[in-house]
Protein backbone atom coordinates (compact mmCIF):
# COMPACT_ATOMS: atom_id res chain seq x y z
CA UNK A 1 0.00 0.00 0.00
CA UNK A 2 1.41 3.34 -1.05
CA UNK A 3 1.02 6.25 1.38
CA UNK A 4 1.75 9.89 0.75
CA UNK A 5 3.75 11.58 3.50
CA UNK A 6 3.79 15.35 3.87
CA UNK A 7 7.16 16.60 5.06
CA UNK A 8 7.50 20.18 6.20
CA UNK A 9 10.06 22.02 8.24
CA UNK A 10 8.02 21.13 11.33
CA UNK A 11 8.35 17.35 11.02
CA UNK A 12 11.48 17.14 8.92
CA UNK A 13 13.83 15.79 11.58
CA UNK A 14 11.63 12.73 12.03
CA UNK A 15 11.92 12.10 8.31
CA UNK A 16 15.71 12.56 8.02
CA UNK A 17 16.28 9.14 6.45
CA UNK A 18 13.44 9.44 3.96
CA UNK A 19 14.50 12.95 2.89
CA UNK A 20 18.06 11.73 2.44
CA UNK A 21 16.88 8.80 0.32
CA UNK A 22 14.71 11.15 -1.71
CA UNK A 23 17.69 13.36 -2.64
CA UNK A 24 19.50 10.28 -3.96
CA UNK A 25 16.51 9.02 -5.91
CA UNK A 26 16.08 12.48 -7.42
CA UNK A 27 19.71 12.42 -8.58
CA UNK A 28 19.21 8.96 -10.11
CA UNK A 29 16.16 10.15 -12.03
CA UNK A 30 16.88 13.74 -13.03
CA UNK A 31 20.61 13.30 -13.71
CA UNK A 32 20.93 9.57 -14.34
CA UNK A 33 17.81 9.01 -16.42
CA UNK A 34 16.85 12.39 -17.80
CA UNK A 35 20.40 13.62 -18.23
CA UNK A 36 20.04 17.05 -16.62
CA UNK A 37 23.79 17.44 -16.30
CA UNK A 38 23.53 20.81 -14.59
CA UNK A 39 22.18 19.00 -11.54
CA UNK A 40 24.97 16.42 -11.35
CA UNK A 41 26.65 16.33 -7.94
CA UNK A 42 29.71 14.30 -6.93
CA UNK A 43 27.88 12.95 -3.87
CA UNK A 44 24.97 11.67 -5.97
CA UNK A 45 22.38 13.82 -4.16
CA UNK A 46 20.18 16.27 -6.00
CA UNK A 47 19.93 19.31 -3.73
CA UNK A 48 19.22 22.78 -5.09
CA UNK A 49 18.65 26.29 -3.76
CA UNK A 50 15.00 25.52 -3.02
CA UNK A 51 15.57 22.52 -0.78
CA UNK A 52 15.42 24.72 2.26
CA UNK A 53 13.19 25.15 5.30
CA UNK A 54 10.40 26.63 3.13
CA UNK A 55 10.02 23.54 0.95
CA UNK A 56 7.22 21.04 1.47
CA UNK A 57 7.63 17.53 0.12
CA UNK A 58 4.87 15.09 -0.69
CA UNK A 59 6.54 11.70 -0.94
CA UNK A 60 4.96 8.42 -2.01
CA UNK A 61 6.20 5.53 0.11
CA UNK A 62 5.38 1.86 -0.27
CA UNK A 63 6.63 -0.06 2.77
CA UNK A 64 10.23 1.07 3.01
CA UNK A 65 10.47 2.03 -0.64
CA UNK A 66 10.26 5.58 -1.95
CA UNK A 67 8.27 5.39 -5.20
CA UNK A 68 7.62 9.03 -6.06
CA UNK A 69 7.74 12.60 -4.90
CA UNK A 70 7.14 16.28 -5.52
CA UNK A 71 8.02 19.59 -3.91
CA UNK A 72 6.00 22.73 -3.24
CA UNK A 73 7.72 26.04 -2.66
CA UNK A 74 6.36 29.50 -1.73
CA UNK A 75 6.19 32.00 -4.58
CA UNK A 76 6.48 34.87 -2.12
CA UNK A 77 10.20 34.01 -2.09
CA UNK A 78 12.64 33.82 -5.01
CA UNK A 79 11.70 30.56 -6.71
CA UNK A 80 12.64 28.64 -9.80
CA UNK A 81 10.36 30.42 -12.27
CA UNK A 82 11.34 33.86 -10.97
CA UNK A 83 15.09 33.07 -10.84
CA UNK A 84 15.84 30.43 -13.46
CA UNK A 85 12.98 30.37 -15.98
CA UNK A 86 11.50 33.90 -16.10
CA UNK A 87 11.91 33.81 -19.91
CA UNK A 88 9.29 31.05 -20.07
CA UNK A 89 6.66 33.52 -18.87
CA UNK A 90 5.29 35.94 -21.44
CA UNK A 91 5.40 39.63 -20.48
CA UNK A 92 1.65 39.90 -20.90
CA UNK A 93 1.05 37.27 -18.22
CA UNK A 94 3.51 37.94 -15.42
CA UNK A 95 4.82 35.42 -12.91
CA UNK A 96 1.99 34.27 -10.61
CA UNK A 97 2.97 34.76 -7.01
CA UNK A 98 1.40 35.31 -3.63
CA UNK A 99 0.51 33.56 -0.39
CA UNK A 100 -2.01 31.31 -2.16
CA UNK A 101 0.38 30.30 -4.96
CA UNK A 102 3.03 27.55 -4.69
CA UNK A 103 5.60 26.44 -7.19
CA UNK A 104 5.41 22.73 -7.98
CA UNK A 105 8.79 21.15 -8.81
CA UNK A 106 10.84 17.93 -8.86
CA UNK A 107 7.90 15.70 -9.64
CA UNK A 108 9.03 12.11 -10.14
CA UNK A 109 7.87 8.52 -10.13
CA UNK A 110 10.43 5.71 -9.98
CA UNK A 111 10.75 3.70 -13.19
CA UNK A 112 9.00 0.52 -12.08
CA UNK A 113 5.91 2.48 -10.98
CA UNK A 114 5.40 4.54 -14.11
CA UNK A 115 2.57 2.49 -15.48
CA UNK A 116 0.54 2.27 -12.31
CA UNK A 117 -1.48 4.46 -10.02
CA UNK A 118 1.45 6.16 -8.34
CA UNK A 119 1.09 9.16 -10.65
CA UNK A 120 -2.55 9.58 -9.71
CA UNK A 121 -1.76 9.20 -6.00
CA UNK A 122 0.83 11.96 -6.20
CA UNK A 123 -1.43 14.21 -8.25
CA UNK A 124 -4.35 13.66 -5.89
CA UNK A 125 -2.11 14.35 -2.90
CA UNK A 126 -0.93 17.61 -4.41
CA UNK A 127 -4.51 18.80 -4.96
CA UNK A 128 -5.58 17.62 -1.50
CA UNK A 129 -2.67 19.28 0.29
CA UNK A 130 -3.30 22.58 -1.51
CA UNK A 131 -7.04 22.49 -0.80
CA UNK A 132 -6.31 21.82 2.88
CA UNK A 133 -3.80 24.67 3.02
CA UNK A 134 -5.91 27.21 1.13
CA UNK A 135 -3.56 27.24 -1.86
CA UNK A 136 -5.44 28.19 -5.01
CA UNK A 137 -2.83 27.84 -7.73
CA UNK A 138 0.42 26.03 -8.35
CA UNK A 139 2.90 26.99 -11.06
CA UNK A 140 5.19 24.57 -12.82
CA UNK A 141 7.73 24.19 -15.58
CA UNK A 142 7.01 21.03 -17.52
CA UNK A 143 8.03 19.23 -20.66
CA UNK A 144 5.08 19.68 -23.00
CA UNK A 145 4.54 15.94 -23.59
CA UNK A 146 3.60 15.65 -19.94
CA UNK A 147 0.63 18.03 -20.10
CA UNK A 148 -1.81 15.72 -21.94
CA UNK A 149 -1.12 13.11 -19.26
CA UNK A 150 -2.23 15.35 -16.42
CA UNK A 151 -5.07 16.74 -18.52
CA UNK A 152 -6.32 13.20 -19.13
CA UNK A 153 -6.86 12.62 -15.40
CA UNK A 154 -8.72 15.88 -14.90
CA UNK A 155 -6.11 18.55 -14.23
CA UNK A 156 -6.49 21.93 -15.88
CA UNK A 157 -3.41 23.86 -16.90
CA UNK A 158 -3.03 27.38 -18.30
CA UNK A 159 0.08 28.30 -20.26
CA UNK A 160 2.13 31.27 -19.03
CA UNK A 161 4.16 31.50 -22.21
CA UNK A 162 5.13 29.61 -25.35
CA UNK A 163 7.07 26.34 -25.13
CA UNK A 164 10.84 26.70 -25.51
CA UNK A 165 13.53 24.10 -26.04
CA UNK A 166 15.30 23.23 -22.79
CA UNK A 167 17.71 20.27 -22.64
CA UNK A 168 16.40 19.18 -26.04
CA UNK A 169 12.74 19.06 -24.95
CA UNK A 170 9.94 21.56 -25.62
CA UNK A 171 9.28 22.96 -22.15
CA UNK A 172 6.47 25.21 -20.98
CA UNK A 173 5.56 27.19 -17.85
CA UNK A 174 1.97 26.68 -16.70
CA UNK A 175 -0.29 27.47 -13.82
CA UNK A 176 -2.59 24.81 -12.43
CA UNK A 177 -5.77 25.86 -10.65
CA UNK A 178 -6.44 23.82 -7.51
CA UNK A 179 -10.00 22.53 -7.33
CA UNK A 180 -12.28 19.95 -5.76
CA UNK A 181 -13.21 18.95 -9.31
CA UNK A 182 -9.65 18.12 -10.27
CA UNK A 183 -9.16 16.18 -7.05
CA UNK A 184 -12.38 14.23 -7.56
CA UNK A 185 -11.46 13.47 -11.16
CA UNK A 186 -7.97 12.17 -10.47
CA UNK A 187 -9.28 10.05 -7.58
CA UNK A 188 -11.96 8.59 -9.84
CA UNK A 189 -9.38 7.77 -12.51
CA UNK A 190 -7.21 5.86 -10.08
CA UNK A 191 -10.05 4.35 -8.04
CA UNK A 192 -8.61 5.95 -4.90
CA UNK A 193 -10.59 5.83 -1.68
CA UNK A 194 -10.07 7.70 1.56
CA UNK A 195 -8.03 10.82 2.11
CA UNK A 196 -5.32 11.35 -0.48
CA UNK A 197 -2.60 11.95 2.06
CA UNK A 198 -1.63 10.35 5.32
CA UNK A 199 -2.93 12.36 8.29
CA UNK A 200 0.04 14.25 9.60
CA UNK A 201 -0.42 13.33 13.25
CA UNK A 202 -0.20 9.71 12.14
CA UNK A 203 2.76 10.39 9.90
CA UNK A 204 4.64 12.03 12.74
CA UNK A 205 4.10 9.00 14.89
CA UNK A 206 5.35 6.66 12.18
Amino acid at each position, binding site marked *: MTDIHVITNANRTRYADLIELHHRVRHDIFVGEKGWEALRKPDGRDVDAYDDEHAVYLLAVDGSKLVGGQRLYPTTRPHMISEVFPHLVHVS*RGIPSGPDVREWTRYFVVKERRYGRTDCRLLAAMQQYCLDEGIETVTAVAETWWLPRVHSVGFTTKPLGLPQMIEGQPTIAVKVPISEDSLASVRRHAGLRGHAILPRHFARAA
Partner: protein
Amino acid sequence: MSGVYDDCAARALDFVEGLDDCHDQDQVSASVARILAEFGFEHFVITGIPNPNDLLEQVLLIERLPAGWFEHYAGHNYMYADPVFRNCRATTSPFQWEEAPFDAEIEPGAVEVMQRANDFGMVQGFSVPIHGPEGCEACFSMSGRSPDLSGRTKPAVHMIAMYAFERARRIGRRPGRPSSNPLTQREQEVLTWAALGKSSRDTAELMHITERTALAHAVNATHKLGAANRTQAVVRAMQSKFIRV
Protein backbone atom coordinates in the same frame (compact mmCIF):
# COMPACT_ATOMS: atom_id res chain seq x y z
CA MET B 1 -1.40 40.64 -40.44
CA SER B 2 1.90 42.08 -39.25
CA GLY B 3 0.32 42.67 -35.84
CA VAL B 4 -0.01 38.93 -35.39
CA TYR B 5 3.59 38.28 -36.22
CA ASP B 6 4.78 41.06 -33.96
CA ASP B 7 3.64 38.87 -31.12
CA CYS B 8 2.31 35.49 -32.05
CA ALA B 9 2.95 34.40 -28.45
CA ALA B 10 0.38 36.83 -27.06
CA ARG B 11 -2.04 35.86 -29.82
CA ALA B 12 -1.64 32.16 -29.07
CA LEU B 13 -2.03 32.70 -25.31
CA ASP B 14 -5.22 34.69 -25.91
CA PHE B 15 -6.46 31.87 -28.12
CA VAL B 16 -5.95 29.33 -25.32
CA GLU B 17 -7.86 31.54 -22.90
CA GLY B 18 -10.67 31.91 -25.43
CA LEU B 19 -11.06 28.14 -25.63
CA ASP B 20 -12.91 28.28 -22.30
CA ASP B 21 -15.73 30.01 -24.18
CA CYS B 22 -16.02 27.18 -26.70
CA HIS B 23 -18.79 24.84 -25.62
CA ASP B 24 -19.11 22.55 -28.61
CA GLN B 25 -16.84 21.08 -31.24
CA ASP B 26 -18.03 23.50 -33.91
CA GLN B 27 -16.92 26.45 -31.82
CA VAL B 28 -13.54 24.86 -31.16
CA SER B 29 -13.20 24.04 -34.82
CA ALA B 30 -14.06 27.58 -35.95
CA SER B 31 -11.72 29.11 -33.41
CA VAL B 32 -8.83 26.83 -34.41
CA ALA B 33 -9.48 27.44 -38.12
CA ARG B 34 -9.34 31.18 -37.54
CA ILE B 35 -6.02 31.25 -35.72
CA LEU B 36 -4.35 28.63 -37.91
CA ALA B 37 -5.35 30.62 -41.00
CA GLU B 38 -3.31 33.50 -39.61
CA PHE B 39 -0.28 31.24 -39.81
CA GLY B 40 -1.16 30.14 -43.35
CA PHE B 41 -2.69 26.77 -42.52
CA GLU B 42 -5.76 25.99 -44.61
CA HIS B 43 -6.61 22.54 -43.27
CA PHE B 44 -6.39 20.62 -40.01
CA VAL B 45 -7.54 17.42 -38.42
CA ILE B 46 -7.61 16.19 -34.83
CA THR B 47 -7.88 12.46 -34.64
CA GLY B 48 -7.36 9.66 -32.15
CA ILE B 49 -5.19 6.70 -33.06
CA PRO B 50 -7.41 3.87 -34.30
CA ASN B 51 -6.92 0.31 -33.08
CA PRO B 52 -6.48 -2.16 -35.94
CA ASN B 53 -10.21 -2.89 -36.23
CA ASP B 54 -11.49 0.66 -35.69
CA LEU B 55 -12.76 2.79 -38.48
CA LEU B 56 -10.90 6.05 -38.83
CA GLU B 57 -14.13 8.01 -38.54
CA GLN B 58 -14.78 6.49 -35.12
CA VAL B 59 -11.71 8.21 -33.71
CA LEU B 60 -12.03 11.44 -35.67
CA LEU B 61 -12.47 14.41 -33.33
CA ILE B 62 -12.50 17.49 -35.54
CA GLU B 63 -11.66 17.90 -39.20
CA ARG B 64 -11.33 20.75 -41.65
CA LEU B 65 -9.88 18.87 -44.55
CA PRO B 66 -10.11 19.45 -48.30
CA ALA B 67 -13.39 18.09 -49.63
CA GLY B 68 -13.09 14.43 -50.49
CA TRP B 69 -9.75 13.90 -48.75
CA PHE B 70 -11.06 12.07 -45.69
CA GLU B 71 -13.09 9.70 -47.85
CA HIS B 72 -10.15 9.17 -50.16
CA TYR B 73 -7.83 8.58 -47.21
CA ALA B 74 -10.15 6.16 -45.42
CA GLY B 75 -11.16 4.44 -48.65
CA HIS B 76 -7.55 3.67 -49.51
CA ASN B 77 -6.61 2.69 -45.93
CA TYR B 78 -3.89 5.31 -45.98
CA MET B 79 -3.60 5.23 -42.19
CA TYR B 80 -1.55 2.04 -42.51
CA ALA B 81 0.89 3.62 -44.94
CA ASP B 82 0.93 7.22 -43.71
CA PRO B 83 4.42 8.15 -42.46
CA VAL B 84 2.99 11.14 -40.55
CA PHE B 85 0.64 8.96 -38.54
CA ARG B 86 3.43 6.51 -37.86
CA ASN B 87 5.75 9.25 -36.65
CA CYS B 88 3.08 10.50 -34.25
CA ARG B 89 3.32 7.18 -32.47
CA ALA B 90 7.10 7.26 -32.49
CA THR B 91 7.75 10.72 -31.06
CA THR B 92 6.30 13.06 -28.46
CA SER B 93 7.75 16.13 -30.21
CA PRO B 94 5.96 18.06 -32.94
CA PHE B 95 7.39 17.65 -36.43
CA GLN B 96 7.09 18.90 -40.00
CA TRP B 97 5.72 16.31 -42.37
CA GLU B 98 8.95 16.24 -44.37
CA GLU B 99 10.68 15.06 -41.19
CA ALA B 100 8.45 11.96 -40.92
CA PRO B 101 10.78 9.22 -42.13
CA PHE B 102 9.95 6.56 -44.72
CA ASP B 103 11.83 4.57 -47.30
CA ALA B 104 10.55 5.51 -50.75
CA GLU B 105 12.13 2.37 -52.22
CA ILE B 106 10.20 -0.14 -50.18
CA GLU B 107 7.18 1.91 -49.12
CA PRO B 108 5.32 2.96 -52.24
CA GLY B 109 2.22 3.43 -50.07
CA ALA B 110 3.94 6.16 -48.09
CA VAL B 111 4.99 7.90 -51.28
CA GLU B 112 1.42 7.73 -52.55
CA VAL B 113 -0.11 9.21 -49.37
CA MET B 114 2.26 12.17 -49.39
CA GLN B 115 1.79 12.72 -53.12
CA ARG B 116 -2.01 12.60 -52.90
CA ALA B 117 -1.96 14.95 -49.89
CA ASN B 118 0.05 17.33 -52.01
CA ASP B 119 -2.49 17.01 -54.84
CA PHE B 120 -5.26 17.98 -52.42
CA GLY B 121 -3.43 21.16 -51.45
CA MET B 122 -1.78 19.82 -48.31
CA VAL B 123 1.68 20.65 -49.54
CA GLN B 124 3.39 21.35 -46.24
CA GLY B 125 2.24 20.09 -42.89
CA PHE B 126 2.99 20.12 -39.22
CA SER B 127 1.84 17.51 -36.71
CA VAL B 128 1.63 17.50 -32.95
CA PRO B 129 1.43 14.05 -31.33
CA ILE B 130 -0.55 13.84 -28.09
CA HIS B 131 0.70 11.14 -25.75
CA GLY B 132 -1.34 9.98 -22.76
CA PRO B 133 -0.50 7.49 -20.02
CA GLU B 134 -0.90 4.62 -22.48
CA GLY B 135 1.21 6.07 -25.26
CA CYS B 136 0.13 7.96 -28.33
CA GLU B 137 -3.47 9.00 -27.94
CA ALA B 138 -4.10 11.47 -30.71
CA CYS B 139 -2.58 13.44 -33.52
CA PHE B 140 -3.21 17.06 -34.48
CA SER B 141 -2.16 17.72 -38.07
CA MET B 142 -2.35 20.99 -39.95
CA SER B 143 -1.35 21.86 -43.46
CA GLY B 144 -1.50 24.26 -46.33
CA ARG B 145 0.14 25.31 -49.55
CA SER B 146 2.65 27.57 -47.89
CA PRO B 147 2.17 27.82 -44.13
CA ASP B 148 4.54 29.79 -41.91
CA LEU B 149 6.71 27.14 -40.28
CA SER B 150 9.45 29.37 -38.93
CA GLY B 151 11.11 28.89 -35.58
CA ARG B 152 9.01 31.73 -34.28
CA THR B 153 5.62 30.31 -35.14
CA LYS B 154 6.19 26.61 -34.44
CA PRO B 155 6.07 26.91 -30.62
CA ALA B 156 2.85 28.96 -30.90
CA VAL B 157 1.26 26.40 -33.20
CA HIS B 158 2.44 23.57 -30.94
CA MET B 159 0.75 25.13 -27.94
CA ILE B 160 -2.41 25.94 -29.89
CA ALA B 161 -2.67 22.30 -30.97
CA MET B 162 -2.15 20.89 -27.47
CA TYR B 163 -4.76 23.05 -25.84
CA ALA B 164 -7.27 22.82 -28.69
CA PHE B 165 -7.03 19.03 -28.43
CA GLU B 166 -7.58 19.18 -24.69
CA ARG B 167 -10.64 21.39 -25.10
CA ALA B 168 -12.08 19.16 -27.82
CA ARG B 169 -11.43 16.06 -25.72
CA ARG B 170 -13.12 17.60 -22.72
CA ILE B 171 -16.20 18.62 -24.68
CA GLY B 172 -16.47 15.11 -26.03
CA ARG B 173 -16.71 13.53 -29.39
CA ARG B 174 -19.59 14.37 -31.62
CA PRO B 175 -21.69 11.23 -32.09
CA GLY B 176 -21.19 9.85 -35.57
CA ARG B 177 -19.66 11.94 -38.25
CA PRO B 178 -22.05 12.93 -41.02
CA SER B 179 -20.19 11.70 -44.11
CA SER B 180 -22.11 14.35 -45.94
CA ASN B 181 -22.03 15.01 -49.61
CA PRO B 182 -21.34 18.73 -50.01
CA LEU B 183 -22.82 18.83 -53.52
CA THR B 184 -26.38 19.86 -54.29
CA GLN B 185 -28.56 17.61 -56.46
CA ARG B 186 -27.99 19.89 -59.47
CA GLU B 187 -24.21 19.99 -58.96
CA GLN B 188 -24.13 16.19 -58.78
CA GLU B 189 -26.08 15.97 -62.03
CA VAL B 190 -23.78 18.38 -63.83
CA LEU B 191 -20.68 16.48 -62.70
CA THR B 192 -22.29 13.17 -63.62
CA TRP B 193 -22.95 14.36 -67.18
CA ALA B 194 -19.41 15.72 -67.36
CA ALA B 195 -18.13 12.31 -66.25
CA LEU B 196 -20.10 10.81 -69.14
CA GLY B 197 -18.33 13.11 -71.56
CA LYS B 198 -21.08 15.65 -72.12
CA SER B 199 -20.24 19.26 -72.91
CA SER B 200 -21.80 22.17 -71.02
CA ARG B 201 -24.18 22.73 -73.89
CA ASP B 202 -25.28 19.06 -73.95
CA THR B 203 -25.63 19.09 -70.19
CA ALA B 204 -27.78 22.23 -70.30
CA GLU B 205 -30.08 20.64 -72.84
CA LEU B 206 -30.35 17.38 -70.95
CA MET B 207 -31.17 19.21 -67.71
CA HIS B 208 -33.46 21.79 -69.29
CA ILE B 209 -31.41 24.69 -67.97
CA THR B 210 -29.32 27.39 -69.62
CA GLU B 211 -25.70 26.68 -70.43
CA ARG B 212 -24.73 29.51 -68.12
CA THR B 213 -26.53 27.87 -65.19
CA ALA B 214 -24.91 24.53 -65.98
CA LEU B 215 -21.52 26.20 -65.94
CA ALA B 216 -22.29 27.90 -62.63
CA HIS B 217 -23.18 24.52 -61.05
CA ALA B 218 -19.90 23.07 -62.33
CA VAL B 219 -17.91 26.00 -60.96
CA ASN B 220 -19.59 25.70 -57.56
CA ALA B 221 -18.95 21.96 -57.40
CA THR B 222 -15.31 22.49 -58.40
CA HIS B 223 -14.91 25.03 -55.65
CA LYS B 224 -16.57 22.87 -53.00
CA LEU B 225 -14.29 19.95 -53.80
CA GLY B 226 -11.19 22.11 -53.73
CA ALA B 227 -10.44 21.04 -57.28
CA ALA B 228 -8.44 23.01 -59.83
CA ASN B 229 -10.84 22.41 -62.71
CA ARG B 230 -13.93 20.49 -63.73
CA THR B 231 -12.02 17.34 -64.68
CA GLN B 232 -10.41 17.14 -61.25
CA ALA B 233 -13.78 17.86 -59.63
CA VAL B 234 -15.28 14.89 -61.47
CA VAL B 235 -12.45 12.63 -60.33
CA ARG B 236 -12.80 13.72 -56.69
CA ALA B 237 -16.57 13.42 -56.71
CA MET B 238 -16.28 9.88 -58.03
CA GLN B 239 -13.55 8.89 -55.57
CA SER B 240 -15.67 10.17 -52.70
CA LYS B 241 -18.75 8.49 -54.15
CA PHE B 242 -20.57 11.82 -54.31
CA ILE B 243 -21.56 10.85 -57.84
CA ARG B 244 -21.98 7.48 -59.51
CA VAL B 245 -21.63 6.80 -63.16
